[in-house]
């Protein structure tokens, strides 16, 4: 502010440093004045006509915006509440349900189970007889080896083969 005042003192009146600059300033003021006066005479009326409704509308538009904001907030609140209710219901159901689900067996299912048990038992018996036969065969092979080792016929075979 003080600087501005100092500049006023410096430039105002005929104490300016350069009269030619003041002349140019004055000429520029004339040009600016001419441009202001060159505006159409109906400029103000047209500006008023185009903005008056806007000035009046802006309050209504603002109210509408506020109402819209409240509505959208209300809907989002409702949706959030519905989600919360569903989540609580789900949690309650998980809490009260039995830990292990019971399976109801039907008569047909029981018969099937008995058949399967019988098949398994038969298979295990079959496995046992096969194992006995294998053991017996193994023992016979061993006995044959011991018996043949004590006889001379192998030598005879070797001589005839030569």
């Amino acid at each position, binding site marked *: 502010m003080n600087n501005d005042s100092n500049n006023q003192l410096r430039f105002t009146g005929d104490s300016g440093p350069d009269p*030619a*600059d003041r002349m140019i300033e*004055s000429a*520029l003021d004339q040009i600016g004045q001419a441009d202001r*006066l060159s505006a159409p005479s109906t400029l103000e009326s047209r*500006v008023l006509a185009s*903005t008056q409704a806007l*000035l*009046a509308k802006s309050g209504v538009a603002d109210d509408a915006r506020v109402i819209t904001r409240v509505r959208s907030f209300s809907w989002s609140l409702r949706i959030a509440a519905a989600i919360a209710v569903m989540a609580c219901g789900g949690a309650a159901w998980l809490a009260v349900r039995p830990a292990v689900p019971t399976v109801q067996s039907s008569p047909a299912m029981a018969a099937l189970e008995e058949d399967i048990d019988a098949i398994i038992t038969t298979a295990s018996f079959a496995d046992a007889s096969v194992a006995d036969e294998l053991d017996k065969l193994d023992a016979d092979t061993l006995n044959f080896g011991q018996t043949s080792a004590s006889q001379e016929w192998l030598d005879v075979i070797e001589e005839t083969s030569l």
Partner: protein
Amino acid sequence: MTRVASRDDREPDAGERLADLLACASAGDNDAWRSIIDLYARRVFALAKSRCGDAVLAEEITQSVFATVASTLGTGGYSEQGKFEPWLFRITMNRVRDEARRAKRAGVSLESNVAPILAAPTPSRGLGPDILGKLRQGLGELSDADREVIELRHHAGLSFKEMTEILNEPLGTLLARHHRALKKLRNFLDAAGITSPIGHDESMEDSTGGGIES
């Protein structure tokens, strides 16, 4: 005649009156809004026209500026703290720059619109239309920064203090830029051979009535 409040004819209580008008307009008072338009529409128009060089475009910009102001006032988005004019003309400068950018994208120079304006005769109080026409040409030769200062000062009628708030520059910088722009214009007129009529025009000495005041 519509009253145009420039820095030359402000009343002492103009600030209080403007604050009242703004308050009434914000409350929906059409008469107050009309008074604000009467006070500033031509200054906005002159600034836009000087920058764009097109009266039709200048009027469009003027309407756009006041539409923005009306919307902001109507929604209570503006509180008067003595900075209405800087705000108004900052909006104007932004609109003008937008138009310049749009014209540049479209491959049209706003300077081409300025030529007829520069050549247009200007009503003169003391200087001949030829000298004022040359001065308009000189304005077109200034850099954007120098020209902004000149046009805000002489077309929009702002004080240097108000210009500091629009351009975000220190007062000293703006004064120096204004002085430099005047010097460039003077050199331009020198080169055109019309320095003498300005430098020795006694009638202009009388009609000047003081130079820069804020």
